[in-house]
């Protein structure tokens, strides 16, 4: 069988040479690999390795900043945290009075979702970064921040709620006035406070009701203390005695009067205000707002709303907190003090 004619012919085939033809290129072998293609990137730079271009020069600090900003949406926790840390140090260590590497408005959209981040360390790092941001610039960004903070305050996970409250108290400290005046900032945020504290309805405010129903929080007392402190700050900013602001305003007008020549008086009131969005209350381009999403710009408005909608619930909650005693009771006294001042001041002069 092995020595058949067919077999022989097959063997012969291996030794046959391909015919060469005049005017044609040499035939390619069977296992020829075409390597003629070159990518454009390869032509420009020195080496291309796995789509990552290596440059001879070190990246500039601004490009590094932008890179880390883009890494904020990375999948791994540690990556996000490290990027945040890098951003914080680069902001904090920049020369005094020099501008930020990127404007706050550009940075915020990638920062904000991190308020709801699952990882604890990421959130604490985020708070550090926020604290590092220049305070005057925050006033205009508050409206952007607040929905995320509110979402955090009603989150299922207890630690996310707590860090959201921390962010809120930082916001009130830096830009209290704009927090309570911006659209939805007053009613909605107060609602969130009540739901975090569980003070909405009569039965849920009782001490026997299970307050740990949503999310599991290890230490019951500590977080509540923090929330109460934040509430005190918030109420103070919203309906506290406006002495401070009055005097500021006064000094402002005085300054203005001084700058205007004699026949003009109180001209400053007729000028366009210098805030970023002076006509925001007209809501020209946004969604129509309901009562909850409305802007309450004066203390008078805020107090009226507070008195009708929240005062009974807050008083009831404070009472039960005081009765609970301990650290919580002590913390509640801070809120009580603010509340008393507000009530004594009343709806306004």
């Amino acid at each position: 069988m092995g020595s058949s004619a067919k077999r022989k012919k097959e063997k012969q085939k291996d030794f046959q040479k391909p015919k060469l033809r005049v005017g044609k290129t040499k035939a390619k072998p069977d296992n020829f690999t075409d390597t003629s293609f070159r990518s454009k990137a390869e032509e420009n730079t020195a080496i291309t390795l796995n789509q990552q271009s290596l440059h001879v020069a070190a990246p500039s600090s601004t490009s590094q900043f932008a890179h880390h900003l883009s890494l904020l949406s990375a999948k791994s926790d540690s990556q996000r945290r490290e990027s945040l840390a890098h951003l914080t140090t680069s902001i904090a260590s920049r020369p005094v009075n020099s501008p930020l590497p990127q404007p706050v408005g550009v940075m915020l959209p990638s920062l904000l979702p991190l308020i709801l981040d699952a990882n604890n360390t990421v959130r604490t790092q985020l708070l550090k970064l926020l604290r590092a941001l220049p305070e005057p610039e925050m006033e205009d960004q508050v409206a952007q921040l607040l929905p995320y903070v509110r979402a955090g305050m009603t989150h299922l996970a207890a630690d996310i709620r707590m860090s959201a409250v921390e962010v809120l108290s930082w916001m009130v400290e830096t830009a209290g006035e704009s927090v309570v005046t911006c659209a939805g900032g007053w009613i909605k945020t107060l609602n969130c406070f009540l739901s975090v504290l569980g003070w909405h309805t009569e039965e849920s405010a009782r001490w026997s009701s299970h307050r740990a129903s949503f999310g599991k929080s290890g230490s019951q007392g500590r977080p509540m203390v923090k929330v109460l402190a934040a509430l005190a700050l918030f109420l103070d900013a919203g309906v506290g005695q406006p002495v401070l602001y009055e005097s500021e305003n006064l000094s402002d007008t005085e300054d203005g009067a001084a700058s205007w020549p004699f026949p003009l008086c109180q001209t400053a009131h007729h000028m366009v205000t210098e805030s970023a969005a002076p006509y925001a209350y007209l809501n020209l381009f946004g969604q129509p707002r309901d009562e909850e999403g409305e802007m309450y710009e004066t203390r008078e408005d805020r107090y009226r709303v507070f008195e009708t909608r929240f005062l009974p619930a807050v008083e009831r909650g404070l009472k039960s907190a005081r009765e609970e005693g301990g650290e919580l009771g002590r913390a509640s006294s801070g809120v009580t003090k603010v509340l008393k001042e507000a009530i004594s001041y009343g709806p306004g002069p």
Partner: protein
Amino acid sequence: MVKRKLGALEKVEADLANLVFARLRSYIEDFRAQHYQYESHREIFMAAPTSATDTGIISLRDLIDFISHVADCYPEILKDFPQQLIDMLMQHHLVLEPDLREKLVGSLVLLKKKDLLDSATLLHTLFPILISTPSKTLRAFIFQKILSELRNANSKTTNHKLNRTMQTVLFNLVTSDRTSSKGVWAIKLTRELWKRQIWTDAKAVEVMKEANLSENEKVIIGGVRFFLGGDKEREEMEDESSDEDAVNPGRVKHQLTINKKTRKNSRAAEKALATIKKKERKKTQPHLLNFSALHLLHDPQGFADSLFSKHLQNTKSKLNLEHKLQVLQLVSRLVGLHKLHIMPLYSYFQKFLTPRQPSVTSFLASLAQASHDLVPPDVLSPLVQKIANEFVSEASAGEVATAGLNAIREICARQPLAIEETLLQDLVMYKKSKDKGVMMASKGLLGLYRDVGAQMLRKRDRGKEASMGLRAGGKQEKRFGQQELGGIEGLDLLEKFKEEERRKKREEKGLPSDAEDDEDENEDDDWAAWNVEDDEDSDDSGDWVNVQSDVEIDLSDSDDENNAPPSKKPKSAEDEAKPNAETDQEANISKLATTRILTPADLAKLAELRTQASVDALIPGSKSRRAGQSSTARHTDDPLTAEEIEGLAALSAGKATREERIAHAKEGKPDRSEHKSREAKRKERKQEQGKSTTNKEKARRKNFLMTLGKAKSKNKRSLVETRAVLKAHHDRRKRGGKRGNAGT
């Protein structure tokens, strides 16, 4: 790390939904927190709808899902929740991510189910998105939701209000912008609902009618297809649903007694019995009378006119030939069905009637469909002449001549005056053709004219019956516009049946006695008895019945005694009635219906006979088929197809595949399973019934290796052992098996 946490939180939320259902009041605080969460996420989303919504652990989608599931528990907190979802969907459906989009649609449907949203609002939300979204998956999803919503709304009783608003929306969609292809959705929806018999009214047909007159090709063809095939689809759907799964109630009950009693089994049995009961109830319900779409058309003349002038006559119409043919088919069906007059239609046909025209058989079929007995012969005869000249000649191919002859026959079946005498006689000569198709077609034409106009044929072609009829003067040529007297279909069958019955009875009684003499008396007795047993509902006065019984008996008499001696005839009461009855079938038929009250039993029998006749007509070789030509057997609603025009040529090797030919050959034959031995059939039947095989079979099937040991040991048996075994075998045989059924 993150993943584990996420799972845990999702679980919390899922639990929360269940907890909320269980204890409404105590979970209100938690629910409120979730609602705020949703509100703030919504705010974030509305500020930037394009950016990713999957922020952190919980996404907006999950929140919407949760809230819509428990929405009915807290109506006061959620009073504007549906509106928010609607706004979100309506404003941003173009940029939403697909998952969220579908979740929104699904949640809206869920809210509708919980009665937090009414059907009309839901449909008004979904429908604009259906016709405007570019996403195919979303369209499919929404279409299905709309359909199921409409079905649900109409499941208990017909929701007229909703149907009317929806139909108005569809109507406006079709009529508002005639050039856009959005009307396709109106067509799809209407067709689907028509198929399921949810919409069966004229308004739905009106929507389709408007679609036909649109300017978009897709919409036009969709509409035309609906009119040509929608009703058939509906019938098929009905058949399908009626014979879904036949469950034998006896078997179900029996199995329930035998099998192990589990909850699952009993539930299955209950379900089966419930379906049976439901089916029974359905059977007893009065059958819904559904008109076909073509009959529900308002102003068919105007519709056909505008269809013709817009799509066919108009030289600027963009339809291609295939689509034009479909439109033509529709127009011609309308003309034939409603007997409309569109004179330019016939001259339009003129230029297409050449053998070289692509798909000319469809044109021929349409022409035949478009002719009816109120079309003036002057209009049709040039067309017939042209067909004869172009198609039918000795030189032309067999298929061509067949098609021409068949077309002429179909036209003439509808308008016998369309052909001239000489032409007819020429065409009839083709019955001697060598080509089988041509020969059959020509004979068909001949047979037709023996029925409808025998005097136009040459004398030797007329045949026995026709020439006898002509001589008696019964078969008059119908004149233009002459209408036949109406009758009840199948009444003659009923009468024949009754006659048979009576004859049988008479023979039973009459044979022992002298049949010839006492026949009248017998008949009277018969009549009385028959009257009592059959007419349950008639308590009429006796003499009224008697008078008319005389007539009937006389008629039967005359039929009966065709071979009886003529001396009997003068005995009967009315002599003059007889020749009339013999010659004129019409009078005979009408008498039964007008002089007798047809009992329900009669009507049932009538229906039965009618179906029997139609089945008989389908079975090849039966006499009724040869007698009744295809034109008479066909219902007026059925379309005439190109295949019928092509005749035998459709079967020829070049055109049909093998499968088609086999299918055609099998057509009409009763179902036949493949050939098998009786044993194999028996085995199959046993297996079907879930029974086991015989011992013999088991022994034969047994694995060889298993039998080996016994076979070996058999060799080693001692004589005594062998004897014992044989004895035992013998005994068993005698007893009749191991258990023995012979002894006792």
